[in-house]
């Protein structure tokens, strides 16, 4: 190619179709354009436990995945259903306690308690949140923020399930290897499952409820049912994360209702990119390790942490994913005129 008869062209030029998210793929090369980012995410997450030096950092990866599950459930509820739910700690706590109860008191293995906690916990959380479903926006957020505090106080006041000591003597995962790959695998299933769900016809109903719930009612669709279904999906994910956490720590107690589990996922969603469902995972991959690294600074940790958050909100307010997506779509190649 001489300099005169060439120009730059975006590499997605030939394959983008007029509607969003539709591509016309003709060759493996064009397919690779779409597969590459997904492959990097999957391979990266699967490789992470192997790359970590020592048990401590491997454990951090498990915790990252736990937070990421809560974060994508927050992202799904807030940006695809329009319910801003600050009750991440509620889901974690309920899931954690259910797994703890069935393991310590009934002797069920983690393989049973984790799915059980997801389903039963999801049903329990949905049932408790059902009266709040007509609320919208900031009102729903405030009420859901109250739930974890409410649960923690009830357990404390009535001395339920070991009271402030929590439930002790819970089984751990068989090995560190199974623990990490279990949570990484579940996380990947959640990310890709939710991304698929929101593009199906049922996923469109969720978006419609967010956009204009009155029009959904006028279409002959019960909005309470779909809101409850969305809350069930999100809370089941959160409860599953909580159950994993219980088995990792071999303990469940009221600190699982701590506000950290509500706040950090939201911060991760802001940093990673709201409404992308992958962004929160990336946000957690940054925030949780940073939080661990800053442990040496004692109370100053919060200062660094807050500075990082403010910097992100100022300079990358749409999140890393939106930025990365834009840059990826702008990649150009030389082509003959």
């Amino acid at each position, binding site marked *: 190619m001489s300099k005169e008869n060439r120009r730059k062209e975006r590499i997605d030029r030939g394959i983008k179709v007029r509607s969003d998210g539709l591509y016309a793929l003709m060759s493996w090369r064009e397919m690779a354009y779409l597969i590459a980012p997904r492959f990097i995410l999957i391979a990266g997450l699967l490789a992470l436990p192997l790359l970590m030096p020592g048990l401590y950092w491997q454990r951090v990866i498990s915790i990252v995945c736990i937070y990421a599950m809560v974060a994508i459930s927050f992202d799904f509820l807030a940006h695809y259903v329009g319910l801003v739910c600050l009750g991440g700690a509620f889901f974690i706590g309920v899931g954690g306690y259910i797994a703890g109860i069935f393991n310590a008191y009934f002797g069920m293995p983690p393989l049973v308690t984790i799915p059980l906690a997801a389903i039963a916990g999801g049903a329990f959380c949905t049932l408790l949140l059902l009266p709040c479903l007509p609320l919208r926006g900031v009102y729903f957020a405030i009420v859901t923020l109250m739930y974890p505090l409410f649960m923690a106080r009830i357990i404390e006041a009535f001395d339920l399930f070991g009271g402030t000591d929590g439930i002790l003597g819970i089984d751990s995962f068989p090995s560190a290897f199974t623990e990490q790959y279990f949570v990484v695998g579940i996380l990947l299933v959640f990310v890709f499952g939710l991304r698929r769900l929101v593009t199906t016809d049922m996923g469109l109903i969720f978006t419609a409820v967010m956009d204009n719930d009155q029009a959904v009612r*006028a*279409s002959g669709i019960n909005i309470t049912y779909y809101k409850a279904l969305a809350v069930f999906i999100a809370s089941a994910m959160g409860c599953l994360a909580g159950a994993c956490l219980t088995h990792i720590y071999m303990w469940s107690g009221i600190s699982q209702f701590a506000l950290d589990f509500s706040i950090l996922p939201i911060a991760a969603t802001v940093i990673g990119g709201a409404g992308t469902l992958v962004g929160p995972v990336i946000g957690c991959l940054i925030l949780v390790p940073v939080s661990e690294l800053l442990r040496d600074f004692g109370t100053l940790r919060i200062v660094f942490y807050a500075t990082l958050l403010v910097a992100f909100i100022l300079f990358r307010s749409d999140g890393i994913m939106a930025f990365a997506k834009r840059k990826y779509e702008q990649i150009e190649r030389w082509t003959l005129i």
Partner: protein
Amino acid sequence: MSKQTRQDQPILRMENVSKVFGGVTALKDVNLDVFEGDVLGIIGPNGSGKTTIVNSITGFITLTSGRIYFKGEDITGKKAHKIADMGVTRTFQIMRPYYSLPAFKNLVIPLFSPRAKRTGGWRGGGTLGDRKTIAIDILEEIGFERDSYIPFKTTSTLPTGYLKRLELARCLALQPEVIICDEIFSGLSMSEIASMVPLIERLQDEGITIVMIEHRLRELFQVANRIMVLNFGEKLVEGAPEAVMADERVKEAYFGSEKMEEVMIYA
């Protein structure tokens, strides 16, 4: 013509319907019968309770007193989605599309409803295929150019005329028995209205009962076979368009001192 169809039982009946908002009486003892195949026009000055009638029939508000029947069945106090499920659909005066979705995906939502699954959706023939394809068929039917970019555009970028059509399309996707149009002509240009009128007439020919709330009297009188006039929440007159136009009370309440003919010209 089906214009004069009359049967013994009305498809929609309002009995002594009243609605009080705080201290304001929006509707006072309104009685109304709508028969199958009717195009009923409801007119009245601003604040006379027209939209309240729509909201009360479709279950978006609860009545203070009175009862509403659809095909003889009491639907008073039923939930809005249940009433839509029975086939009584409505449009909104202030359009309520799903702004973040492309236009054709707006119709996937009504096509996903239990009623559409039962009836097959508009011209679905009882079997519901790919919802997105049916959505584009419906859009073409109501005037979205199929081969253009318009059905695929994000709804927030569409002009008012298309949004009004989209409101009607949402009703059609449910394969309705009754469509209640809340000011479907308002905010449209003359040419847009001119293309909407045949659409309304076609729906009527297909046996759909239509209730139209309208300020555009000229076009309303073209399609309507019965007119009800509301004033301060009370039914003033009801009857054939010509009779209503000639009525002294209507001129007095609704049009002030102006002559009816002048109103028709400027409407």
